[in-house]
């Protein structure tokens, strides 16, 4: 399988000489969901910011389809969409306008937009709210708007940061179904989450971060092998790592 996202030797942080993440090496390939797991403050969000091209690496690189953000900014960014942990909406725009402008920004044809948007709206039960403004939405509905915008574009890569918080069970189910569908048609998905039982069921591989470093990675089988915990669930392995037992 071809790698879509390739992160190599990535080191970075907010202050010079004080890196928050150290020498990260991982990839997201076609047709796989990769779970990014770690405690609060482990460096997941910082890693994601580097992948988004919002932070410049101190050393190493993050490449999408062989290109870095510096090489081809516009091209790099048109390969992925991002679902942030906290929904960020334009207060002045209706739901429909959010979708429309996202489609325009990512260069979709109007016809493509119209054929994709209806089933999405129905699936997430937002089809009767297209004229609503963000101040009328609950937190979960705002999250749905973010998800709809990201799914609408159908990019090669999805970067998803803790998508389940605030989402109702039907919403979670619809979202996961879409993720599986897109995965099966060749997309790669990097998903950061604390909901380990869901991650265990849906992710093909896991990246476990601790204090800015990647301490364990691989499929569940591989994680069990490397941690020496046969039969363990992802929860157990994660707790084991989080308590600093693996270095």
């Amino acid at each position, binding site marked *: 399988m071809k790698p879509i996202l390739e992160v190599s030797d990535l080191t970075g942080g907010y202050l010079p000489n004080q890196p928050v993440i150290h020498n990260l090496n991982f990839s997201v390939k076609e047709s796989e969901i990769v779970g990014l797991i770690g405690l609060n403050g482990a460096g997941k969000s910082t890693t994601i910011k580097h992948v988004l*091209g*919002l932070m410049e690496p101190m050393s190493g690189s993050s490449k999408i389809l062989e290109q870095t953000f510096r090489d081809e900014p516009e091209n790099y960014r048109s390969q992925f969409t991002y679902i942030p942990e906290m929904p960020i909406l*334009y207060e002045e*725009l209706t739901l429909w*306008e959010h979708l*429309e402008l996202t489609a*325009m920004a990512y260069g979709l044809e109007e016809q493509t*937009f119209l054929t994709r948007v209806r089933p999405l709206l129905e699936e997430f039960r937002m089809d009767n709210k297209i004229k609503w*403004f963000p*101040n009328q939405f609950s937190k979960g509905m705002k999250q749905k708007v973010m998800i709809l915008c990201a799914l609408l574009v159908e990019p090669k890569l999805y970067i998803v940061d803790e998508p389940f918080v605030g989402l109702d069970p039907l919403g979670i189910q619809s979202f996961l179904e879409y993720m599986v569908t897109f995965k099966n048609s060749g997309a790669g998905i990097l998903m950061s989450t604390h909901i380990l039982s869901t991650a265990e069921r849906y992710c093909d591989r896991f990246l476990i971060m601790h204090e800015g470093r990647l301490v364990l990675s691989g499929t569940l089988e591989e994680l069990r092998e490397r941690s020496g915990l046969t039969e363990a669930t992802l929860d157990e392995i994660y707790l084991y790592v989080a308590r600093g037992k693996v270095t």
Partner: protein
Amino acid sequence: MIDVKKLWRKRRNAHLTQTLKYFSLMANSGLIVSLILLIIVGSIYYAKLLKALPENFPAVLILTVLFSFLLTKSAIRTLLKEGDLVFLLPVESGMKQYFSKSLSSAIASGSFITLFVFTLTWPIVQVFITDGWKMYVTFAFFLIAAKVFNLYVAWEERRLPYKSHQMNYKIMRFIVNFVYVYLLFNEAYVFLIAMFAIMYVLKNFVFGVFKKMHGYQWEMLLAEEQTLKMKGYRLVNYFTDVPALKQTVNKRPLLNMLGTFSFKKKNMMSALFMKTFIRSGDYLGLYIRLILIGFLFLYLIPAGWWQLAVVILFFQMLSLQLFTLYTQYRWNVIFNIYPIESNVKITAFMKWLRGLLLIQGLLYGVFYGLLTGDWLIALLMPAASLAYSLLRLPSMTKKHITLSS
């Protein structure tokens, strides 16, 4: 147990400090000069206006309406914060002292504003109603008394859980105020005393009952506080940048056409800016106001070539105020990660701003041409806006947007 009185004092002091700081910033930005100018120009026109008013000018009616609105309004700053919904809810019963402090300070500022407005209208009263310092004191006393009454009952009114019910009582207060002020300006003191009796009954037996029936409407109080705070910020924002200013959104469906663009990638940014402009808080109002004030200047200042400098000054003011429309996206991740290069975004913003400047210049030109008949200078006004947007705007944008992002 929290000392709520101390909490109030702390918040009030913080509020006063902030107000003073913003005031000094406003003063630095030329507020004092413009205020003095405004007072001089205003008083000249006020005097002129008074002389020009006809004999049968319905002064009593107009003042009655004015003061009825002023008395009914009764805003109360509670200085509540969002976190209070979580942290102060458990001490609800103890909040009485906190709110009574906020009511007292509302009474102080409300009385001052009433007195101030009454003093402003005093020349009208002198010409059309009555004269003499005794009358000034009497009227001021009755108006302030009514203001205190209104604030007291308006506070109780805020306990009602539905906005529509609050509105009904507000309308009732308006009617009472209208009658009261009307009687006052007709110097019908006997009836006024009767009004006092009615107000006493209202206070104790109508509004006073709410206290027993309802608790505080925390969310509404918080929403009101936020609105009042934002109003203050918006005022300050005319003079200096207020980072805490949250824009309110108005749907303005009639203007939707202006924000409609054909479905192309290159139009995305223009669509975003235009939709924000027509719906977000005060940008549109600011644009219209700047144009109208511009007209006023063109009218007041003697005609001549220097009028071109005046309109360029207004182009500058508009651009400075509208840069915040772009910088408000500074922390929006989604805006930042669109597959659109940042210089393309900024160019789109400048193009959009140029459109507004051209319309502004065109309107000034037409106004000036109709006013003076000097169509050469009139024609140069839109030309100046074009020149301004091509020569000056790029470097300004660089300074205000590129450096801040």
